[in-house]
């Protein structure tokens, strides 16, 4: 399924960001409504031109070579084509569900942000399988190319109210073999379609801990191999005053609660100093 390619550069406080995302949704709804309300008009104009042609054909059949009404038909059809093309231009695919996920993550974190500071980063929903998102490319003995895509669709950095610096990076990783012409056992060449060899979501969280307020302690809730919602914790690093968490899930559809649950659980590694 294809989605509208949205890219939002974040560098503002939560409310303007949320407002902009809501505005984007409202604008899409407006264009969708306009399209649905008007899509029949070009067709009507197209059909409306046909009677003019019929009148002309009848007049020609009666011996009057009068083709002016065909011009009206041509204008009607031309207008219908121009209107139809203009209408098609505003037609948009739906937004990726991860836009809603990002919106909810920002909305949930909005009260935890340090006053006067901003969310930094991006929401990149332009698509996963793009050339600039290829991180590795292998060619096997048969010349088949397998590509590994890394689509960091959410990158967020925020200075929190408690002095910690939170970095969130949500990444969709895809391993895919490109389509190719293969030769079967019968000797015939066949077009083999692209094949997915792996598809998973990766979530990286890094918290630069405010040493005046927190100390890092082990937590039974979060260890390598633990499961938080759909995420499996792959690695935890608490060295250097920073908590670095690497999680992955094969569930492709992100739910904001899942990301927020990992965030919340990562805070169990921090103990407030007295």
């Amino acid at each position, binding site marked *: 399924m294809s989605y509208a390619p949205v890219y939002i*550069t974040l560098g503002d406080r939560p409310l*303007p960001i949320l407002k902009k995302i809501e505005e984007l949704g409202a604008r899409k709804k407006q264009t969708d409504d306009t399209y649905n309300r008007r899509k029949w008009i070009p067709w009507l104009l197209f059909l409306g031109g046909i009677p003019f042609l019929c009148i002309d054909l009848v007049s020609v059949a009666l*011996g009057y070579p009068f083709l*002016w009404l065909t011009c*009206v038909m041509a*204008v009607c059809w031309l207008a219908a084509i121009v209107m139809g093309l203009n209408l098609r231009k505003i037609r948009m695919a739906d937004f990726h569900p991860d836009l809603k996920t990002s919106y909810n993550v920002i909305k949930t974190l909005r009260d935890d942000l340090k006053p006067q500071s901003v969310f930094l980063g991006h929401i990149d929903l332009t698509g996963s399988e793009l050339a*600039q998102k290829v*991180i590795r490319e292998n060619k096997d003995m048969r010349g088949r190319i397998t590509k590994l895509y890394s689509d960091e669709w959410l990158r967020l950095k925020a200075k929190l109210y408690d002095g910690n610096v939170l970095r969130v990076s949500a990444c969709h990783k895809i391993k895919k073999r490109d389509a190719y012409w293969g030769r079967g056992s019968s000797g015939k060449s066949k077009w083999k379609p692209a094949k997915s060899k792996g598809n998973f979501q990766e979530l990286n969280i890094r918290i630069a801990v405010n040493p005046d307020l927190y100390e890092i302690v082990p937590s039974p809730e979060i260890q390598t191999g633990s499961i938080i919602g759909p995420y499996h914790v792959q690695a935890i690093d608490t060295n250097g005053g920073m908590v670095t968490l690497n999680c992955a899930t094969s569930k492709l559809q992100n739910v904001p609660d899942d990301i927020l649950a990992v965030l919340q659980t990562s805070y169990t590694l921090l103990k407030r100093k007295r």
Partner: protein
Amino acid sequence: MFKPAIIFAVILSVMVMAVSCLVTFLGLSQGAKVDSQTALTLPYRGTVHSMKIIDLTGDGVNDLFVQTDNQVMVYDNNQQVVIDQSYQSPLATTMGDLDGNGREDILVFYGPATNTRASVFLNGAFATEVRIDNTADASRAAIIPFVGQRLGILGDTNGNLVAIDQNGQVVWQASLSSGDYIRGLDDARVNGEVFVAVANHDGTVGLFDANGQQRWSYQLSGALRRMRAFDLNGDGTSEILLGGDGGTLVVLDGGTGQPIFTKSLGQTIVEIREAELNGEPSSREIVVGGRSNGVWGIDLAGNILWSGTASARVSQISLLDVDANGSEDVLVGDESGKVTLFRADNGSSNSIQTFGGAVERMDIGNFTASGQTAIASAGNVTVLKVNYTQLGFMRFVPLLIGLFVSLAIFVAAGFIASIPPKPDLRISVTEQSREALIAQRRMLKESIADVERLRSLGNVTPEAYLARLKDLRHQLAENEASILKAGIKINVETRSCPNCGGTLMLGADKCEYCGQVVLH
């Protein structure tokens, strides 16, 4: 204030209305149809070489004269054969008032060189027949009303001319050129005085007076196919129109034999007629038919008024004012048997009827009814009436159509102008405060460092690295611009590649995207 679509619609509507007004008020939209109704058919044998609707019996009612390879026939108004006479071929005939009684007579010139004869019919009855000596085969004949005497001029296949009176007595003999046949004989006027213009197939053209004295001669390059004499401008002196294999229409001054103009038409000219095409009665125009199907309307200055194409080689041209507007429309018969009407004003064509064989001869006149057209083709003379029907209200239809089209244009423009624009899908939500901009800058530098780290680890393809770096550096350049705009002092770290416009880090001496060497 106004959207471009509305401005465009206004301009387009003005243009549409201007064109529709022009079409309406110039009467370009006639809404007319042209068809034909056959009145009768009359049979003949062989090929028709001459045919005319003319009163030959003196009863005040037109008859139909038909001359074939070796036969002369006259049908009266009741389709009864009045004259049916066979002759030894070759045969040439002409009609005119030879005895000066105001009635049309027939002069027949026929026979091979050994026995050429002239036969005269006066008032629809045989009058006399004489042997013409010292001539080659019969080729052409014409009755010329010279001042003081009316003579029949006979032309043979060796360029000789013989003038005879109504009794068949030879008045004078002359020669235009030898070795080829007389192709055209026509009466021409010079300052009101009548002469005979003579054309030989070899291209020689001459003007002879009533005594057989040649006034001038002209040599057309190439074989001559058609010679006609008309006083096109009404000055009392005829213009001699010549056409032939050279494909050039030559118009001579009848008085001097000097060309008035020549017009190259690119194909052999097979027929020439004078016509009133533009409705301006002070001058006549010329219609020319070509061997390669071309039909032209030409004015006296040599300008082509219109041109058209028949279905096959043009064989006959006649003129008929179908819509009674004072201009003569052009009926063209061609060798495929099709008769086409070309409108006098613009040359637009309407097919009238198609016959089973080539159109051999065509004439227009009042035979059994007024304004009939007689067409000889495939063994039958078909007499038909060309009808023209006009729907008066159609004239204003272009104006209504213009209004309708303008309305459609405005509806379309309003439709387009009121479509909400598609939202921008690449947006930047960036606070312009000092802290936010500096933080964003730091974040971008982190991202650039990340990409470079991935590259050093080999975790990104060179293409993806460049693409991501280009995007991040572009954002960094935008951030720097915003920072500078906000009045914050920073060390600018980016610059644009003069070749591809990509953003480079300051100090780079080669563009990573396009390979251009960057000089500082």
